Every structure is written in structure tokens, then in C-alpha cells.
């Protein structure tokens, strides 16, 4: 895109579940990010706009929104990369209830994390020696490849199976579970495998791989879920878990 466009035409979702897109004119600046654009609207054009952000530098995951049809971190999306002919359409993340304008209610996203048993279960006390985990063990390599999830919700928003299946816990919750399945220190894996083997767990995934395409941390939830499918199938066939 050339530097000749001096103004952006920015359509922002206003309202809750129902509402409409409202269009604003925002001056185009160099190295502008989509978050800069949204911030400009709220500060200079319409203070009633609601949106979320925190770090502004791509480490917190708060600013994820749908930008021209794709869920992204707005603070790390340069306008030049996405604005077709100086136009931007920005809405809240999909697959989540809208609170107002560009903010969504992420409660179900975090509840699914719990449902998939994505919380560490200790197996020792402070009196035992510290566990020695080799960073080059296959399990630790697998966990490390999936550990950097900051729960931004982009994968959840981009997943068609989440959209079609209200019981599906989603890629992020399962990725988190996968890191713990691979954590030698964790003592809760039977219950965890049982949880992800149930309806709405890892087997609901159809490997569309949108999550892997979209993850701003370049994680691969499809691969994590595939790992869970293997582990749960083995556990089921061995009688360690039930359907």
C-alpha cells in the first residue's frame, strides 16, 4: 500500500449482540497499528467507544479483535498490512458474547480452561527435593512448544468447530491441558485425560488448523490436540479412562 492515503475509513462495531458498524475517519500515520486507530477514535472522536488493551506491545493478549475478517492482536497489526484501500472493519472477537462494542465476555473461554483441567496438580510437597526436569526430554520439548499461550482468544475466535459446537472447549484450553499432560511433576493426568476425552473435548476437533494459522504466538494447537487424541485413545484402550 502506498503512502498516499492520508485518511482511513474505519468501521467499528457499536452495540452488543445487536448493533451496527459505525464509520469514522482517522488520519493515517506512519507505523500506525490498528490499536492506535481504535485509540484515536476513542480519544478524539467518540469517547463512548469501549475496547480493551493493556501492554500495547504484544505480550498480554488483551487487545485481540476481528480486523477485516480475521482475529488479530491489534497492537501488533500494522495498518499498512491489513487496510485494503484505506478501509478497516473492526469488530469484537467472534464466538464470544459481546459486552459492548469491541469488548467480549471471556468467561466461557476461561471456564473451558478449567473444564479441560488446564490447571497444575502438584504431586509433591515443599519437603521433597526440587524436581529435576531435563529441558531436552521429549515430554518437556512438547510442553515447551505449547507453553507460550497468553490466552488471547484468537484461536477460539477463529475456530469453526467452536462456532458450531457449543460444548467444545476449544484449542487454547486443550493446548494448556497438553502442556500439563507432558509435565512430569503433574499428578492429575488421569483425571485430565478423562476430562479431555469426554464430549466437547479433544475429539471434537476436526483439524481445520485455523488455530495454527491464526495464533500470534505461532503455537500449534492442532498438534497439541492430536497429541491428546493419541494419549486418550491409548488410555481408553488400556482401560485407564472411560468414555
Amino acid at each position: 500500500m502506498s503512502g498516499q492515503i492520508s485518511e482511513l475509513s474505519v468501521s467499528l462495531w457499536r452495540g452488543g449482540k445487536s448493533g451496527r458498524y459505525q464509520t469514522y475517519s482517522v488520519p493515517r500515520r506512519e507505523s500506525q497499528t490498528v490499536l492506535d486507530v481504535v485509540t484515536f477514535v476513542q480519544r478524539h472522536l467518540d469517547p463512548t467507544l469501549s475496547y480493551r488493551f493493556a501492554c500495547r506491545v504484544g505480550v498480554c493478549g488483551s487487545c485481540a479483535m476481528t480486523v477485516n475478517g480475521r482475529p488479530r492482536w491489534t497492537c501488533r497489526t500494522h495498518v499498512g498490512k491489513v487496510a485494503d484501500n484505506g478501509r478497516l472493519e473492526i469488530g469484537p472477537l467472534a464466538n464470544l458474547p459481546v459486552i459492548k462494542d469491541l469488548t467480549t465476555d471471556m468467561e466461557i473461554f476461561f471456564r473451558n480452561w478449567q473444564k479441560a483441567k488446564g490447571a497444575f496438580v502438584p504431586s509433591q510437597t515443599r519437603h521433597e527435593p526440587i524436581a529435576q526436569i531435563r529441558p531436552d526430554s521429549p515430554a518437556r520439548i512438547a510442553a515447551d512448544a505449547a507453553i507460550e499461550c497468553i490466552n488471547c482468544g484468537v484461536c477460539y475466535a477463529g475456530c469453526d468447530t467452536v462456532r458450531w459446537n457449543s460444548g467444545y472447549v476449544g484449542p487454547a484450553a486443550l493446548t494448556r491441558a497438553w502442556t500439563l499432560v507432558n509435565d512430569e511433576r503433574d499428578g492429575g493426568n488421569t483425571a485430565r485425560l478423562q476430562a479431555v476425552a469426554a464430549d466437547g473435548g479433544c475429539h471434537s476437533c476436526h483439524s481445520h488448523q485455523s488455530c495454527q494459522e491464526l495464533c500470534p504466538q505461532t503455537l500449534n494447537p492442532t498438534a497439541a490436540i492430536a497429541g491428546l487424541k493419541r494419549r486418550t485413545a491409548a488410555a481408553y484402550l488400556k482401560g485407564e479412562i472411560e468414555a
Partner: protein
Amino acid sequence: MTARLTKHRDSALWLAAMVHRISGLALAIFLPFHFLALGLAIDSDARFESFLRWTDQPLVKFAEGGLVFLLAVHLLGGLRVLVIENFAWRDGQKQLATLAAAVSVLIAVGFLARVF
């Protein structure tokens, strides 16, 4: 209507997953009719024979080519899923998915060449 989510569906892999599902659905719908046709042989060889002659029509042969394509693409799509779920692949998957579709087309074309 809120945010219009569209761009992620441009992916070849997403399309492969959809083709897999739709081909499976089409085959599932086709199967009862296939079984009923074969079941004609219960009544008499003659009924089965007249059905087979009906399938000689060019339009039916085209449809059969389509079915062969669906069968092949569903099988290859299934192999794609088995590969994703059992090997940590990432690179080259798109090419594989395209190759699978191409091979299916070849098989279907081969079938059509035989019957016409």
C-alpha cells in the same frame, strides 16, 4: 450481526477439511441407494440387469465418475487426518492436500475413460 469472520477460510487446509466432510456426507446419502440397487438382484437377475443397463447412460456414467471422485477424495482426506494426528507435520501439508485432490481427480478421470 457482529464481526464478519471470513479470511481464515482461505486456507487450503480448511478447504481440505470441508471437502472431506462434504464428500463423506454425499457418500453417506448415496450408500442406501447403492444397497437398494444391488438388492434388486434378490427379485431376479433380470431386474438387476435392466438396472445395469440404465447405468449405461452417459449422464449416469458421469455421476458414477463423480462418486468415484468422492470416494477417492474422502479416503485421501482421511489419510490427511491420520497423518496430522499421528505425525507432527506442518510444512508441506498444503501441498499434500492439493496432491490428494489431484490424485482423486485422476482416479475419477481414469474411471470415466474406462466406462466411456
